[in-house]
C-alpha cells in the first residue's frame, strides 16, 4: 500500500518525555541545546504574557483574552521555525506567537483591548492580522504563498488554526488549494481538545486530524504539542520541505487549553477539573526546564535572566494597556476605502457635528 508515507504516526512524535528525559527518535533529532534554551526563554515569556494578559482582563484593561496557557510550546515553536522573510497567519489565540515574532505586545493587544481591529503593521513583522472567523485565514495563507511563488520568492507561510476550525469548509478548501498548487504552506493545527465547550470527539471521528492530510495528497504528522523540542523538529522539517519545493504539509499538535476559552467563558460547565489537573503534569515549561536543568544547559542565573526579560515584557504590557489611547472617531471613516465616498464624508460630517455640539454642551460625548 503506497502513499501511506503521507499518514501520520500512530502516536505523536515526542523528543522529551514528561519527566524531561530525551526520547530517541528514528526520524527527528533533538534540537541543539542553544535552540532549546532559546525556546525555553520563549516559553517563560509566553507564560508571563498569558498571565499578565489575564490580569489585565480582570482589571478591565483588556476587553477579552483567549489565553494560550498550556500551549506555549506550540506558540514559541511556530515563531522560531520561521525565517525572517517567512509569514505567520495566526488566530485570536496566538498572541504569544505574534509577540514572539517581534510584534510589540502593546500593538499585538490592540484588538483585544478594543482600540482597533488590528494593531500592528503586518508587513513589518510578516504576521497577518489575527483572524477571528475560523479557518478563513488558511485560505489567505495559501493565496499569499501563491503570490510569493508567482514572483519566485522562497517565502514559507505558516498557517495556524485550532481543532475546531478543521471542521470548517475553509479548512478543506485551503488544504486542497495548497496541495493542487503545490505551494509552501505549513498548516499547523493546535489540537487543544476543545472548541470552546465542544470536545474533539464531537469535532471528528478520524483516527487523528493529521489523517486528513492524505486526502489532499500532502504528508500529515502528529506531535506532542507540550514538547517544544518535538514541535520544533516536526514543524522545522515541514518548513524545510516547503522551502525546498516539497509543497504543503499538515502538522497536528496534541496539547491542552489550560484555561477557559476566554475570560468570558466558564469551563466548569463542560469539563472535569480532574482532566485539567492531568495536564498540569504535562506542562511544556516544566518539562523543558527539567530537561535543561538536567543537561546543565539551564542554570539559576539564566533562569533569572529569562524571568527578568519576561517581567519587562509584562511591565511594558501594563504600561501600554493602562494608557488610554487617544482614539479618533474619524478613523471609523478613514480606512474603509482608499478614497472616501461622498456618502461616508456626509456621514462623518454628521458625526463631527454631533461631537462638536456635545463637546460644546457638556465637554464630552455621552
Amino acid at each position, binding site marked *: 500500500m503506497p502513499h501511506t508515507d503521507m499518514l501520520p504516526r500512530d502516536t505523536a512524535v515526542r523528543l522529551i518525555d514528561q519527566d524531561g528525559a530525551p526520547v530517541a527518535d528514528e526520524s527527528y533529532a533533538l534540537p541543539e541545546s542553544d535552540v532549546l534554551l532559546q525556546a525555553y526563554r520563549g516559553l517563560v515569556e509566553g507564560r508571563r504574557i498569558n498571565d499578565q494578559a489575564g490580569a489585565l482582563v480582570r482589571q478591565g484593561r483588556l*476587553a*477579552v483574552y483567549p489565553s494560550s496557557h498550556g500551549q506555549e510550546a506550540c506558540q514559541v515553536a511556530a515563531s522560531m521555525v520561521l525565517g525572517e522573510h517567512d509569514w505567520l497567519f495566526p488566530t485570536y489565540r496566538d498572541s504569544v506567537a505574534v509577540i514572539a515574532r517581534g510584534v510589540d505586545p502593546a500593538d499585538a493587544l490592540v*484588538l*483585544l*483591548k*478594543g*482600540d*482597533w*481591529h488590528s494593531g500592528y503593521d503586518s508587513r513589518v513583522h510578516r504576521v497577518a492580522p489575527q483572524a*477571528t*472567523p*475560523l479557518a478563513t485565514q488558511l485560505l489567505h495563507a495559501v493565496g499569499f504563498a501563491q503570490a510569493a511563488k508567482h514572483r519566485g520568492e522562497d517565502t514559507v507561510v505558516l498557517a495556524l488554526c485550532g481543532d*475546531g*476550525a478543521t*471542521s*470548517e*469548509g*475553509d479548512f478543506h478548501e485551503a488544504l486542497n488549494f495548497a496541495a493542487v498548487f503545490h505551494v509552501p504552506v505549513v498548516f499547523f493545527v493546535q489540537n487543544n481538545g476543545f*472548541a*470552546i*465547550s*465542544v470536545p474533539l470527539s*464531537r*469535532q*471528528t471521528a478520524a483516527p487523528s486530524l493529521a489523517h486528513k492530510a492524505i486526502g489532499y495528497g500532502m504528508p500529515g504528522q502528529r506531535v506532542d504539542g507540550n514538547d517544544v523540542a518535538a514541535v520544533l523538529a516536526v514543524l522545522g522539517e515541514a518548513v524545510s520541505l516547503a522551502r525546498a519545493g516539497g509543497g504543503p504539509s499538515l502538522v497536528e499538535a496534541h496539547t491542552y487549553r489550560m484555561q477557559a476559552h476566554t475570560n*468570558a*467563558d*466558564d469551563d466548569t*460547565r*463542560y469539563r472535569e477539573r480532574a482532566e485539567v489537573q492531568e495536564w498540569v503534569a504535562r506542562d511544556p515549561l516544566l518539562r523543558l526546564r527539567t530537561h535543561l536543568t538536567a543537561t546543565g544547559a539551564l542554570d539559576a542565573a539564566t533562569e533569572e535572566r529569562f524571568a527578568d526579560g519576561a517581567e519587562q515584557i509584562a511591565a511594558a504590557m501594563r504600561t501600554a494597556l493602562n494608557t488610554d*489611547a487617544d*482614539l479618533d*472617531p474619524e*478613523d*471609523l*471613516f478613514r480606512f*474603509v476605502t482608499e478614497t472616501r*465616498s461622498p*456618502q*461616508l464624508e456626509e*456621514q*462623518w460630517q*454628521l*458625526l463631527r457635528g*454631533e*461631537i462638536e455640539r*456635545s463637546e460644546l454642551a457638556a465637554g464630552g*460625548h*455621552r
Partner: protein
Amino acid sequence: MTIAHDDTRTAPEVREVATMSMAAALNRALADAIESDPDVVVFGEDVGALGGVFRITDGLTARFGENRCFDTPLAEAGIVGTAVGMAMNGLRPVVELQFDAFALPAFEQIVSHVAKLGNRTRGGLRMPLVIRIPFGGGIGGVEHHCDSSEAYYAHTPGLTVVSPSTPQDAYSLLRAAIASPDPVIFLEPKKLYWSKGEVDTSVTAEIGTARIAREGTDVTLLAYGAAVPLALEAAEVAASEGRSVQVVDVRSLSPFDDATVTAAVKSTGRAVVIAEAPGYASVASEIQARVFERCFEYLEAPVRRVTGFDVPYAPPKLEHWYQPDVDRVLDAIDTLHWDEDV
C-alpha cells in the same frame, strides 16, 4: 398579515406570568417548544453542556437529552445544511449560529436552499426551521461579533425575518417562529438579552405584525430590535420637550406590516426610521422608501433614517460613536420641517 399560529405545535401549556430577562424568555420558549412538539430539535455550536455562549440554551440538554439539544462540529454551512435535510424529513430544527458574522459561512445554504426549497418543490417539501442569530452590537464585542446583517436575509425571497425587542415578544415570536411552516431568521438583539420584562406564556404573537410601542401624535419612530428601546428613550426626551412621539416596533422585517406602519405614519405626517445596521440598501431604506411611497400625500417632511454608518462595525472603544443614540434620533426629528410656532 397574520400567519396563523399552528396550535397543535404550541400545545396549551399552563399559563405562567413572570418577570424575566429576554435571554430567559428565549430559553423558556425553546424549552416549551421542545416539550410540546416532539419534532423540535435544537442544535449548533456550544448549545449543549455550555448552554450557548449567551446561555440561551442553558439546561436544555440536561433536561431533554442529547437527542433534543446537541452540539455539532464547528461548521455553519454544516449546521444549516443538515437542518435543511432534517426539515425535509419531518423535523423542526431550531439552530443557533453564534454571532451574525459566523452565520455567513452558511449563506449559500440559507439563500439557495432554506429560502427556496419550499418553492422549488411547489410546497412539497416545506422548510419549517428556525435560524437563531444573536445580532447587533452595543456589548463591546470585537470585530465580527457585533454585525447586523438583517438586510441580507430580508432581501432574500422566501425567508421570514423577525426580531423581538421585549422579553414577551422574544417568547411569543420564537414560539410562533418554531410553529411556522416557513423558514424563519430569528434575530436576537444581544444588547437586550439582559433587559427584563413580564412574560405571559399564554400570549401568542403573529409573525407579520408590527406593534405600537408608544402612542403619539407628532411624529412616528419606526424601529426594531435594539432600536426600539432607543426610540422609546428618545420619545421620552422629546416628550419633555413638548413633542408627542409615536413608536412602532416593526418586529417582522419580512413580511412587513404595511397596514400598521402606513396608518401610523399617516396619523402623524412625520417619520424617522431607526436601525443599527449600516443604512445603505438596508431594511431601513426599505421602510423609508415604502413609507414615502405609501404616505406621500400625508408627509409634512421627508422621512428620515437614523442608522449605523456605512462602515465596518466599530471596535469596542469606538462603538459609542457608531451606534445610533438618542441625540441622533432627536436631531433627525428636528429636521422634520416643524412649524416652530406650534
